[in-house]
């Protein structure tokens, strides 16, 4: 089966610019997650969607980050304006249901460098 698709693979921007990442989950997966992985750290959950509703966005810096999942399929994550500390790999993951009973399938990620 096709995996979780993410684009772009790499992105370099200057601080205060905006950037958007795209994710296409595995077909039929109701739950979609965005994680931020800073170099040397484990992934940190930014936001979790169940279909097109937000389940958890408690660690999303809402003053600059936004995410949407229209029609419960594809999702975009946006940063505006970007800061130096946003340099990280942004991982998208999906699962059939909640993480309790289903394993997460991860995409390869988008590596963001903010200069």
């Amino acid at each position, binding site marked *: 089966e096709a995996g979780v698709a993410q684009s772009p693979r790499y992105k370099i921007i200057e601080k205060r610019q905006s950037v958007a990442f795209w994710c296409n989950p595995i077909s039929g997966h109701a739950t979609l997650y965005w994680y931020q992985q800073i170099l*040397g750290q484990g992934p*940190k959950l930014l936001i979790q969607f169940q279909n097109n509703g937000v389940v958890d966005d408690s660690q999303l810096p809402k003053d600059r980050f936004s995410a949407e999942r229209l029609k419960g399929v594809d999702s975009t994550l946006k940063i505006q304006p970007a800061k130096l500390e946003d340099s990280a790999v942004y991982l998208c993951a999906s699962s059939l249901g909640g993480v309790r009973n289903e*394993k997460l*399938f991860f995409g*390869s990620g988008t590596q963001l460098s903010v200069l």
Partner: protein
Amino acid sequence: AQSVTQPDIHITVSEGASLELRCNYSYGATPYLFWYVQSPGQGLQLLLKYFSGDTLVQGIKGFEAEFKRSQSSFNLRKPSVHWSDAAEYFCAPLGTASKLTFGTGTRLQVTL
């Protein structure tokens, strides 16, 4: 506060040698526990998980992990490491609100 610790940042083993990666957690109740592997240029992949029952769980690629409640540990093991096992390994407890928290990871290097 809920937390997970992977004490070893970097481990080097020879191919064919045994491996143990440590994971300790601090949660009010026993969480569900997962191990994920991240190979260079690839996405995270689930190795194994523990929910309840038998404290020794088997995973993919010949990995196993043992849950020890008394030590709040969930260490990952493999009897004989292959060069292809070189990767970063993350322990991830599932705590309240079904939030999966990843440890800082252990980078495994395999020498031939």
